[in-house]
């Protein structure tokens, strides 16, 4: 009579998946870049359009890449936290201003403060696509060898910085989330 048990067993399995699903984020795309070399970009600097910024110059250092735009509401909310992080001088932050126009970006940085060592200007979003960006703000952590080790999608807050970024930057191994990509 075991076959009469089949439906309830199948239902049990589905219910387990559904219960697990409550804590998952269906729209969060894990970055295939984790563990791979960070795509190289050379872009015009927002701070000084006569100069260029390339992440090639940062090999040998850990650094952050923060993708933002003046059209992005969450980026504005994140900005204060980024300024605080920059003040701690733990790690350089490279900005990528994507799908934007130059005057708005320059106004943004001069009015709100500039947490970036330099900001690359990516008006057509090609660098964004190379990094698999789908919702600004997004932040990538790159290690000394130029390998992407972590991606955070969404607004960085103090808690996120303390729990997800600092342990990875300092190699304390005390990381709460083991995933290579986290979404807020």
């Amino acid at each position: 009579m075991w076959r009469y048990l089949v439906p309830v067993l199948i239902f049990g399995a589905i219910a387990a998946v559904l219960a697990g699903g409550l804590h998952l984020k269906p729209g969060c795309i894990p970055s295939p870049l984790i563990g791979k070399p960070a795509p190289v970009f050379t872009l015009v600097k927002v701070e000084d359009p006569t100069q260029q910024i390339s992440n090639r110059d940062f090999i040998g250092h850990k650094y952050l890449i923060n993708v933002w735009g003046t059209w992005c509401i969450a980026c504005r909310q994140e900005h204060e936290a980024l300024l605080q992080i920059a003040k701690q001088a733990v790690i350089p932050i490279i900005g990528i201003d994507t799908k934007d126009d130059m005057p708005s970006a320059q106004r943004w940085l001069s009015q709100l403060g500039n947490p970036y060592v330099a900001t690359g200007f990516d008006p057509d979003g090609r660098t964004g696509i190379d990094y698999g960006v789908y919702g600004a703000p997004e932040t990538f952590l790159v290690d000394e060898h130029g390998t992407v080790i972590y991606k955070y999608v969404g607004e960085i807050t103090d808690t996120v910085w303390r729990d997800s970024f600092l342990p990875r930057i300092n190699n304390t191994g005390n990381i709460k989330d083991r995933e290579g990509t986290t979404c807020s």
Partner: protein
Amino acid sequence: MSVELGHFALILAFALAITQAFFGLAGAATRREHWMMAARSAVAGQLVFVLFSFGCLTAAFLRNDFSVLYVAENSNTELPTFYRIAAVWGAHEGSLLLWLSILVVWSAAVSVFNRAMNPAFISKVLGVLGLVSGGFALFIIATSNPFERLIPSVVQGRDLNPLLQDPALAAHPPMLYTGYVGLAVPFACAVAALIEGKLDATWARWTKPWAMVSWIFLTCGIALGSFWAYYELGWGGWWFWDPVENASFMPWLMSTALIHSLSVTEKRGLFKSWTALLAIFAFSLSLLGTFLVRSGVLVSVHAFASDPSRGLFILVFLLACIGGALTLFAWRAPALKSSAGFHVISRESFLLMNNVLLVGAATIVLLGTLSPLIIDFLGLGKISVGTPWFDRFFLFPMLPMLLLLAVGMHANWKQAQLAKMRKPLLMMSGIALAFALLITLVVYSHVSILNIVGETMGALIILSSLYEPFTRWRAKHHLPRAMWGMCLAHLGLGVFVLGVTTVRSYEIQKDLSLGSGKIVEVGGYDFNWTNTRQVRGPNYDATEAEVHILRDGREITVLHPQKRIYHTQTNPMTEAGIDSHLNRDLMVSMGDDLGNGMWSVRLQYRPLIRFIWLGALIMAIGGLIAVLDRRYRVKVPATELAANASTAAARS
């Protein structure tokens, strides 16, 4: 004040639902007649309080009471009255209240139309329905209270989502929910039968109309949703295999299987445990749909504002309802034995195949819908499953099913004499194939194997459905309504298949930029864009274009597509201009203003697309005629009733 009364009425309704569940189940178990009567009174009370509560919320919408959070978020003083009523179910909280109201109406119907069944059985059915409505009432009260106040109040509401401001979409949720929720009745019947350990032909005959009426509403609801997507979204798509669409489609497939299986149980007393299982599955899938829409576990456009606590609540409810019913099934179903046989070629065999294929189809849709979740759950990353996968795998069960249907319609119970059908069937197949070749080669002059197969199937099913009525009419035999209904519903399926095949194979879609005086040809029609002007609606402003459509230089019609900006929720909306004909739709949708009087525009030619909804409508009408068959209204002879009652009493 009436808002608080509405809330209070809801709490009373919850208490009554629990009363109904207790007295219904315990009354039947202990054979206390006054307890069973109490369950019926509780249904009546619950009906009054739930409808009162629903009325209070509607009143809050009608008088623009923005001190109610739900009203403030979904209405606006500019919103036309009709949509203010539709806005009651425009978002999560109110739509749940609609769900509950419909369930209570169904319960009341069960407590009234039940002369054919013994009171103890009805009492159990009402008890199970009480558990379901109690669960939903608690869900609303605990996690989704539509009567929550907004303090301080606001002067203006945020308006109903413009996408929902459409007559078809206003009617779509009540229709769909009536179908969804109606499946609770066969579910409760199955559970009651399992408790009694007795499931016979009388049970099947009584349960079938409930299942069929739900199925009719589901059919109409899904078709209406698809029709809405087609013209309101404005881009010509009519089915997207979106998780929420799948959530409505799976119960439909399952209830279709259920209706067919109920026929076998009614006529031959066979497939008893299978029928009970299908009744449980059908309602389980409709609850699962509720979970998927409201828990946020899947990405979907239709998803309501999701909240993990709501998801958790529904999950617990699912576990109790479905887990309980399936456990009961595992325990009691082995007792539901039947010893009757049938020939290899018989109506029973065909219906069993139909069931396997329909349940298979539903399982495939479920597999595709849940697989991103399963893979994520197992820590294997993220994948997407969309149209390309569904389109391919849905055909696996459907093609054999259509073929078996064309033949199986002519099979008799017990043993079919298909030999005498060989000649007519071969002839009809020949005609269908000739028709398909004619369509592909002559009308559209473009050939694909799948298209020929599809057109042949569609035509064959239509011919096959007409055969029996035709021969009986020629022989001047009487045709019972159930038979009429069946033939008509199958004919509807044939029409649907023709529509889907043709539109998939021969639709033409062109994206281009248009300006005044430019003429473009699509599918043999010339689209002449003359000018644009500004128009003003009750709560929106729009740019309206004028497009003249010509065939062979002669003007057929003028279309007026619009690009609307609603005042409150300022997102742009496209109102397509559609010229519909039975044989084709022409559609013009406006994209963006490109400057210099130029617009990006999508022009479409969709042959036979109306057949898709026409087919669904014919199916529903077929179901309606079948449900009006005399045998569902005939009173069961008193002796049989007494026999039922005594066996039931002996069992319990």
